[in-house]
């Protein structure tokens, strides 16, 4: 009986919601936050970011620190920290230092939305590096677009992450479209194989890449004997492989991440019809984890990686700073540290071009100008090569490299840089 | 015509014949008792009547309607309600709510009616609550409606079971050992209640009971089961002196029962 009244109250509240909206505007007036976008208004933040002396230039970061791929996410975050350290050691911009505001995007659209809103609500966030995964970036994208905060993703490779409608969307990673094409070309022309089986892990990344590869293969004149998905977290793929083996493919291409790739590479050796088939996977599997987990079965398998035009000295300097700070080689964790470092450098470079001191010693950054400045980046020297953004926001340098595994280590056999 | 008419009801579990071709007929406004030693099949027979078991053979007619094949809730709707040997109340509900659940089949309000609180629903709920309080008063639990059923004293829980069964406005009430575990004074109270059920509410009552004092003082008719078979039936006095009955109780070692018989 008591609950009846509570519910009556809730109902009252419901009635309140149904009432015309303008009434509570007084409340909105109470709260026009200093540091936050006025929430009642449309989400557009103020057109400029004004940084008082002693405050920092804040760059948001959406990293996959939990979720399915925490290690690469950690690597990306740490690389971004190195980049910020380096910028600050060089004095920042006119004495204004940078600060990285790291958030966990958890590689999911859900968390991407939350992180996006958090950045959009914080009017001191100038730009964002991230997200790590494509799904996460899809969560960020509409919110940052409305809030006019430009982002540069180091590792979201889904072709749809950037598009003509979105002027704040940029990335230094290369689109999967490119990787799938080059992989198919390598398999068809260099290895001379015609019959392939395609597998994927049912992630947006893995399945997308697998489809691109399959289409490219068929377009070249090859044949795809099977297109099978597996589930992330499964450990026994023998049944799916037996089915694939019945089609006698010459190569299995797997779109997905390292653990599943390693298991497939191992278990295919035990499957009838696949004893002599070769195995190829993608940049999600181009990791030390793959080598460790697949062990001997990794020998002779192929991996592609969308590599930058690696700048040897820069990379060496970066690696040294990274090891000194975190006590671990970046490549132990994941492949995208270079891109992450460069995404910060790219943002910082654009900020440097648009930031203006005002009369009272503040640093003023115009948001629209910054968006345009990131898009107009050209010839910036980064670890992954010379970065130039095109009209869609594709800023990545470099190209696709194909590696094979020899004596437990990756060795490049074809592709960009050779 | 008898209100309840059971013919050749047989229930088998695996190889065990729990109830074997039992006939029983109970006339309106009578108190009939079912007695017999432990494991004689009394409760099984009850379960057959109330639709919890489906007998392999036989026929059960209530008020002229065949009952076999109906679900327990349909049988309640037909007008037969029961209580349990080991009390089975809805322990976390209040006393009143227990009786309201008992009235379930007699209420007609729908979920939509409840959501929109239609006048019909509200009226019906008010009436149901009033009736529940009347039933509480009838069994002597007035004022205890808002207590949690589990926290009632043991004897009151038995009364509440009766009240819950009455909620469905039954024509016939099946009481499974209503006086089990009660002290003599409580038993007397229960006896009076059963009489009032028959006399004031014009109810037909079938009860299972071990306490011969109860059985003999209240029953209009006594039926004795042993090993699933009916071995005697008739007026209390006649059954009391039936040699087969004495044998059944003696043979099964129920000396205590025998001493009460004689």
């Amino acid at each position: 009986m008591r609950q009846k009244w509570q519910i009556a109250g809730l109902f009252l509240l419901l009635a309140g919601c149904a009432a015309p909206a303008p009434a509570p505007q007084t409340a909105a007036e109470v709260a026009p936050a200093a540091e936050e976008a006025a929430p009642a208004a449309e989400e557009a933040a103020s057109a400029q970011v004004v940084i008082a002396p002693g405050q920092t230039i804040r760059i948001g970061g959406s990293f996959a620190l939990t979720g399915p791929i925490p290690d690469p996410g950690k690597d990306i975050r740490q690389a971004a920290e190195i980049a910020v350290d380096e910028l600050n050691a060089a004095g920042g911009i006119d004495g204004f230092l940078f600060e990285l505001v790291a958030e966990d995007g958890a590689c999911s659209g859900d968390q991407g939305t939350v992180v996006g809103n958090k950045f959009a609500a914080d009017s001191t966030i100038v730009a964002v590096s991230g997200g790590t995964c494509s799904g996460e970036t899809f969560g960020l994208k509409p919110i940052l677009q409305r809030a006019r905060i430009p982002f540069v993703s180091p590792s979201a490779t889904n072709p749809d992450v950037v598009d003509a409608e979105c002027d704040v969307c940029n990335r230094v990673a290369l689109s999967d479209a490119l990787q799938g094409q080059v992989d198919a070309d390598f398999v068809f022309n260099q290895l001379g194989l015609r019959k392939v089986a395609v597998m994927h892990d049912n992630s947006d990344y893995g399945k997308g890449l697998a489809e691109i590869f399959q289409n490219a293969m068929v377009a070249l004149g090859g044949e795809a004997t099977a297109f099978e998905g597996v589930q992330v977290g499964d450990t026994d793929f023998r049944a799916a492989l037996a089915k694939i083996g019945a089609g006698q493919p010459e190569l299995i291409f797997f779109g997905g991440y390292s653990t599943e790739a390693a298991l497939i590479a191992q278990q295919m050796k035990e499957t009838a019809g696949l004893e002599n088939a070769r195995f190829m996977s993608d940049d999600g599997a181009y990791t030390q984890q793959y080598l460790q987990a697949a062990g001997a079965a990794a020998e002779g398998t192929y991996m592609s990686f969308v590599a930058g035009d690696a700048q040897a000295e820069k990379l060496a300097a970066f690696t040294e700073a990274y090891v000194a700070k975190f006590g671990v080689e970046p490549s132990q964790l994941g492949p995208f540290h270079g891109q992450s470092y460069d995404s910060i450098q790219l943002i910082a470079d654009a900020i440097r071009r648009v930031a203006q001191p005002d009369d009272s010693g503040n640093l003023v950054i115009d948001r629209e100008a910054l968006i345009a400045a990131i898009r107009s980046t050209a010839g910036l020297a980064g670890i992954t090569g010379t970065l130039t953004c095109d009209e869609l926001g594709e800023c990545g340098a470099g190209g696709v490299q194909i590696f094979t595994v020899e004596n437990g280590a990756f060795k490049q056999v074809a592709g960009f840089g050779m | 015509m008898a209100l309840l008419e059971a013919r050749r009801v047989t229930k088998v579990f695996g190889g065990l014949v729990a109830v074997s071709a039992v006939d029983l007929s109970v006339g309106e406004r009578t108190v009939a008792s079912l007695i017999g030693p432990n494991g004689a099949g009394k409760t099984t027979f009850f379960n057959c009547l109330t639709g919890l078991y489906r007998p392999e053979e036989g026929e059960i007619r209530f008020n002229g309607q065949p009952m076999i094949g109906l679900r327990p809730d349909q049988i309640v709707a037909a007008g037969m309600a029961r209580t349990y040997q080991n009390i089975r109340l809805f322990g976390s509900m209040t006393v009143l709510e227990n009786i309201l659940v008992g009235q379930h089949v007699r209420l007609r309000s729908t979920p939509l009616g409840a959501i929109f609180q239609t006048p019909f629903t509200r009226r019906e709920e008010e009436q149901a609550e009033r009736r529940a309080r009347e039933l509480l008063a009838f069994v002597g639990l007035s004022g205890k409606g808002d207590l949690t059923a589990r926290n009632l004293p043991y004897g009151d829980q038995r009364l509440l079971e009766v009240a819950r069964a009455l909620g469905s406005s039954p024509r016939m009430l099946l009481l499974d050992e209503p006086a089990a575990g009660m002290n003599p004074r409580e038993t007397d109270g229960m006896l009076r209640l059963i009489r009032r059920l028959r006399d004031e509410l014009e109810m037909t009552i079938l009860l299972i009971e071990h306490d011969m004092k109860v059985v003999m003082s209240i029953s209009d008719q006594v039926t004795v089961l042993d090993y699933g078979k009916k071995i005697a039936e008739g007026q209390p006095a006649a059954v009391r002196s039936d040699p087969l009955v004495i044998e059944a109780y003696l043979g099964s070692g129920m000396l205590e029962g025998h001493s009460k018989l004689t």
Partner: protein
Amino acid sequence: MGMLAARHGLRTGALAFVLLTYLTLIGLPGRLADLAMPVLAGVAAIFFWLVLRRNPQLGGIYGSLGGTALWAGLLAGGFYAVLTAFFAGLLANGVRVQLVFDKIVPQNLAALYAVMPGALLSGELSPVGWLRQVGLLGLAGVAAALLVAGERWLRRRELPPLAALRWLPLLLPFVLLAAVIGLGSPAVTFGGNNQGTIRLLLAMLAVGSGIFAARAVRPGGARRVLWALLAAALVGLPFLLDQFQNSVMGIVFIFVMMGLGLNIVVGFAGLLDLGYVAFFAIGAYVYAFLAAPFSSPWLIAQLQGWGLPVSGPLVSFWLALPLTMVAAGLGGLLLGIPVLRLRGDYLAIVTLGFGEIIRLFMLNLAELTNGPRGLLNIAPPTVGGYSLGNPRDIFLLALAGAALIALVANRLDGSRLGRAWVAMREDEDVAQATGIHLVYTKLMAFAIGALFAGLAGQLYAARQTNIFPENFSLFVSIDALSLVIVGGMGSIPGVVLGALALKGLPEVLRGVDEYRIVTFAALLVIMMIVRPQGILPSLRRGRELQEQGGSRADQPSVLETLPDNAGGSPLAQKER
């Protein structure tokens, strides 16, 4: 300090050492930097305090209480110093401990000595570092003993009851709300960059304390006034909060909607459903099909076949509402029918399987659902051309939806059907033998619960604008179930509190991101042990969880005192 103290101290110290080792291995010290050791000592002190206060046989501060505490502290400290020395030694000798223990890297370990990682690697550790560890933990023990002694002292002299101040807690929600408003004004700068998060926390505490306040007042005029004020505050809240805070509150209240639906199935009807996410997914996907048909290859083909435009939504958010709810409700019936005969754990696993089946269909029926790439650009609700897609409006919509569902759930709870659910939950067989149609009652629970989940799903899809099968994993079901249970099963206000605690607090604790899930998991276990009936149990469930038995057998029954014609017989008279 006799044997008793030594024995208790030894055990407590060993347990504390295990706890500290765990915290070290998961890398907490690295996060705390120079504060690592003091914070760990603080944790140990709390632990000692919790253990000691439960042990009344320990005497005074100079006796076995103090002794135990000192023993425990020094012991834990000693062990801990040995452990860190061991790891430090390994690291200094170039052994890469992180190959086994991921977090044992120089950065983390150095934090315990408050030195730079370089110093650790070169092996320049002085005994001072170890003595500091032992000392701080010993201190923690002493502090815990003092706390316990103080507590006992306070309990011995009862403070005069401050009856006059009992109404003060009722003001708490409003005080907190004032703080939320205050923190939002430009004049106040507090907590630096965390100001927004602190506001969010305060807003959530305001809502939570509001619920407690509402429960604390007896029904009557005062309660109505309080309720009106609280409702007004709640409606005003979205206009006070910023985008991030609103977005978090939005998801919290979407989960409230879901929790209220699940509460009907699990809390009211007692049917353990581990696949509840299925209906949430059905709602979200059906709305996505209607609002973003251009994302689904199959739908595009169909629409083109019928000559319909495919560029925009087919129906508006509001028109889609009944459709998604019906679809989800049908899903509920579809699940309900095969599981009618199942009970308890069988039901749990089948519903779990059902949830997985739906998710796998979303994943694999790529022609229809676009597979793992999801359905994109789902239209937000609009009113007269004004888009309600921003976090504030979504929060408002979720509030409205939650209020509506709460109202419906509450009315059902007190209805004929609600009683049938509870009866069925308590004893299915007796319920049936009391006249309850089990099939109908069960199916109603599944269908109504599913309907609400579908509603929540639609709002979720509108909020996200892009949905993927991964958004509908088993963990969503677990989250929903946990929040119902943490809040208090069968309790409607409990669901709100549960959602605030389980979906809201983790967003506040974003700083400790990687520790979120372990903290949450540990809380779940501790909660079940300490307060299984939930934060705010429903009155009925609370009764169910009480110890059975009690004093019922000792009390006399009314039967003993029943007069010959008790209470007249109004019934009999009426029926004649």
